[in-house]
């Protein structure tokens, strides 16, 4: 399943990256004679309520959805690795305090807080770096900022077992500094499971971004991310179901392939689970 998923996800990514050069229809090409058209040769995915071509919009939106997913994953992995490394490398109160913060963040209601942060900071950041960039940075930071906790726990657990291993002790005996021990010896060995967790995080981040857009609080209306397409489509379910089905199908396909890849990676890297 994981192998098929890699192929499907690769095709999807290729379509999103190359698609706009092949399918040369503008995303904001309004055509009132073809409103809410069902799929045809002219518009393979049909059109929306303004007669805009859905295939072009989905290709464009897919770029944003995937970019948000990967960027948020990177932010989450970065924070998680930093917090987990500090907690794992230090003993005593620092470790305890960091783990308390991690547990606190784990028990936060994420979606309400996500909405709250976006509501509070949206306008300020927009004024600072512009509408599109501001929303992108905000969404990536916020989604990543609420997904670092499992990574931090994972990294800390790896550190706790790795720092007692012989090769670390050998490096310590050779006089390596604490920083060098952590960065050169422990961290590279701790990253395996982190990468698996990161794969699943991409899927979670894509869902989170689509959720925000679906609630009408993500990207501005002129940027058709997949969640935004669904949000616009939900009022036309009875007359134009293809609109919602294509956008939702794309999210589903991306998420399930990423989940399958993550699952396959975990099976491959962790032989204990396979019985």
């Amino acid at each position: 399943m994981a192998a098929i998923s890699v192929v499907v996800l690769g095709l999807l990514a290729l379509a999103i990256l190359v698609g706009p050069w092949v399918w040369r229809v503008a995303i904001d090409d309004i055509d009132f004679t073809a409103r809410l058209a069902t799929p045809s040769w002219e518009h393979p995915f049909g059109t929306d309520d303004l007669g805009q071509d859905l295939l072009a919009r989905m290709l464009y939106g897919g770029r944003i959805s995937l970019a948000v997913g990967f960027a948020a994953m990177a932010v989450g992995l970065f924070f998680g690795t930093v917090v987990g490394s500090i907690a794992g490398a230090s003993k005593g109160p620092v470790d305890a305090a960091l783990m308390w913060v991690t547990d606190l963040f784990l028990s936060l209601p994420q979606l309400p807080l996500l909405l709250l942060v976006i509501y509070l900071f949206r306008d300020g950041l927009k004024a600072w770096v512009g509408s599109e960039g501001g929303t992108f940075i905000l969404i990536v930071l916020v989604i990543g900022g609420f997904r670092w906790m499992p990574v931090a726990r994972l990294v800390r657990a790896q550190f706790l077992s790795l720092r007692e291993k012989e090769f670390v002790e050998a490096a310590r005996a050779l006089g390596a500094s604490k920083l060098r021990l952590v960065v050169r010896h422990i961290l590279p060995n701790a990253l395996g499971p982190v990468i698996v967790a990161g794969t699943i995080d991409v899927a979670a981040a894509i869902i989170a971004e689509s959720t925000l857009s679906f609630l009408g609080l993500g990207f501005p209306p002129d940027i058709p991310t997949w969640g935004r397409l669904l949000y616009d489509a939900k009022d036309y379910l009875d007359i134009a179901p293809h609109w919602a089905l294509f956008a939702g199908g794309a999210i589903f396909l991306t998420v399930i392939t990423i989940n399958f890849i993550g699952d396959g990676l975990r099976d491959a890297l962790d032989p204990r689970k396979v019985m």
Partner: protein
Amino acid sequence: MGNYLLRRLVVALPSLLGISLILFVLLALAPGDPFGELASNPNIPPEVREALRIKFGMDDPILLRYLHWLVAMLHGDWGFSFASRVNVDTLILQRIPATLYVVGSSQLLALAVALPVGVLAAMRPYSIFDQIANTFAFIGFSLPTFFTGLLFILIFSVNLGWLPFVYRADIHATGWLWYWENIKQAIMPVAVLGLFQAASYTRYVRSAVLDVIKLDYVTTARSKGLAERKVITRHVVRNALIPVVTLVALQMPTVFGGAIITEQIFRIPGIGSLLISAILANDTPVIMAVTFVFACLVVLFNLVADILYGWLDPRISFR
């Protein structure tokens, strides 16, 4: 047990304080001034604005402001909703039963599906049933709730016309009809939320049961001649449930997130849809209060999980 409960309560308090601190810091860091609108109003002289700022303590040190805010929250003084012109606490009390009703029944549904399916799948790992269950679980938690919600509406409301897709609090019917209408309109939201959760719970239950089922005491129970049914229900499931309870408690933030989405799709008058409409109406006191209520609910359910722990594994409560 009473002692244990008290200890858990004492542990829960700092996390509530932490959450309130995070909320307050967010509010304080956010750009924009609650009195900004007054500044642009030419009818209000600057002296009045200054007096208002001092009255509401806007220039006090931040820690003092936090304390004031916390004391006000504890007194139940949650502010006044600008959009609906009522006190925030009455507004939330009106809305909270619908949310708890939907979330509660969806959790029951999720467990009712996940427990038997997970246990059966783990009893015969890699059988056909296990593989089918696994595939469905994968599909289930890869389908975001907002998409399943729309799919359900499309199939059951638009195409088949069986179920209403707008949730109504004021149903004009009496007696059995009233109950029937209420159940009918709750089916779709509960199913959307419950099946999504059931998918991930099934995987938890399966792996927890797999961990337990090979242990020696299960073999002992079998060799004593206990019926398979009894071995599974009394010896395997009870012990397998302990990690499942943790994972379910950890899922609570996600559950309430899902509740916001389903409430929005099916227009259920709960606190989730209240949050969204408050955000769209820039109604800051309501937004803060609802977020805080969600945080409290999560902490509360973690507490419930702790109590369940003590019941499932009595050793924990004696420690």
